[in-house]
């Protein structure tokens, strides 16, 4: 498939944000992107016309019940079979921030054995408590499974901003070590919070901004085609989105978030 034929669907409901930035990022790379309200997408049965899906950030349904919980159920109930077909065909799904919370709440991530009926992980209230909106450093830890970071060298440190109050990734307490081993063994660990030089945050604030277990910032499913991350790559797409670009002698044209969208589109053009 040519890049200009790639079509990405971005889902919107009350409370989502950065859907326009996501659309612009994808379109700047030469692909097409449409923002659909979930109800319209369901009504028109349009999901199958797309090659990739993005669930953007925000506070879907006011974050009521738990962040991402209501949109997660909405997606699985209303799109159920269509969504499963989409995943089975190997079409990529990206969940950004609230989108990551949705993917975890819907059982799509970590998805050790496919889609799980109940969540296998949670994104809990930040420690220290509070909504945090700032730039963080992330280390790319994936060895090649995650199709969203295939164009990023392993070990590379990325700078992308976060904006959330519930981003503390956790597994069930009694199984956390075992599930972490499984995550690493399966090559499902993708991004970890780190310091500027790439050394591990080791759970310490402020490098780890929310108390995430094992400094986890982003993971993929067992086939590498579903990826969720708390940071916002669409807010780090252009060089001029960097907080210090005016002080740079030669600001880069693009920032680190670009590679995530680029890798996604690359995968689609190769695979389909």
């Amino acid at each position: 498939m040519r890049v200009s034929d790639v079509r990405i669907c971005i889902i919107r409901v009350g409370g989502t944000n950065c859907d326009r930035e996501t659309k612009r990022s994808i379109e700047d790379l030469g692909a097409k992107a449409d923002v659909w309200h979930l109800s319209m997408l369901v009504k028109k049965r349009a999901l199958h016309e797309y090659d990739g899906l993005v669930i953007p950030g925000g506070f879907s349904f006011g974050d009521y019940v738990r962040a991402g919980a209501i949109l997660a159920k909405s997606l699985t109930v209303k799109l159920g079979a269509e969504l499963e077909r989409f995943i089975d065909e190997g079409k990529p799904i990206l969940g950004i921030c609230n989108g990551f919370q949705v993917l975890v709440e819907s059982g799509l991530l970590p998805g050790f054995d496919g889609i799980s009926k109940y969540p296998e992980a949670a994104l809990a209230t930040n420690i220290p408590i509070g909504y945090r909106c700032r730039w963080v450093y992330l280390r790319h830890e994936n060895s090649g499974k995650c199709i969203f970071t295939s164009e990023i060298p392993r070990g590379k440190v990325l700078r992308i901003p976060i904006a959330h109050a519930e981003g503390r990734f956790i597994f069930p307490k009694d199984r956390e070590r075992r599930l972490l081993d499984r995550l690493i063994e399966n090559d499902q660990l993708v991004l970890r919070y780190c310091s500027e030089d790439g050394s591990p945050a080791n759970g310490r604030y402020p490098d780890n901004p929310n108390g995430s277990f094992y400094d986890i910032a982003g993971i993929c499913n067992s086939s590498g085609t579903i990826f969720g991350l708390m940071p916002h790559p669409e807010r780090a797409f252009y060089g001029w989105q960097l907080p210090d670009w005016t002080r740079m002698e030669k600001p880069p044209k693009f920032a680190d978030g670009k590679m995530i969208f680029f890798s996604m589109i690359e995968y689609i053009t190769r695979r389909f």
Partner: protein
Amino acid sequence: MRYIARVEVSLKPGHSDPEGETTRDSLKELNYPVRDVRVSKVYTILLEASSIKEAEEQVEEMSRRLLANPVKDDYRISVEEAR
């Protein structure tokens, strides 16, 4: 029949509760001898069912499917006939 269900969703023991800790610190500042605070969320649900048993089963399922995340939450259910 109409029933009123009360579902209390709380964090599992051992899971840190940053909201509870912040509240505890504030109560301490007010000079109360508070040792610990845990925050939970209560849903009061009015529903139709043919028996109390059916109502309980439905609410149990609601809790598992939406109201609680089994990774971190416990829940307690009580159901009574609505008057």
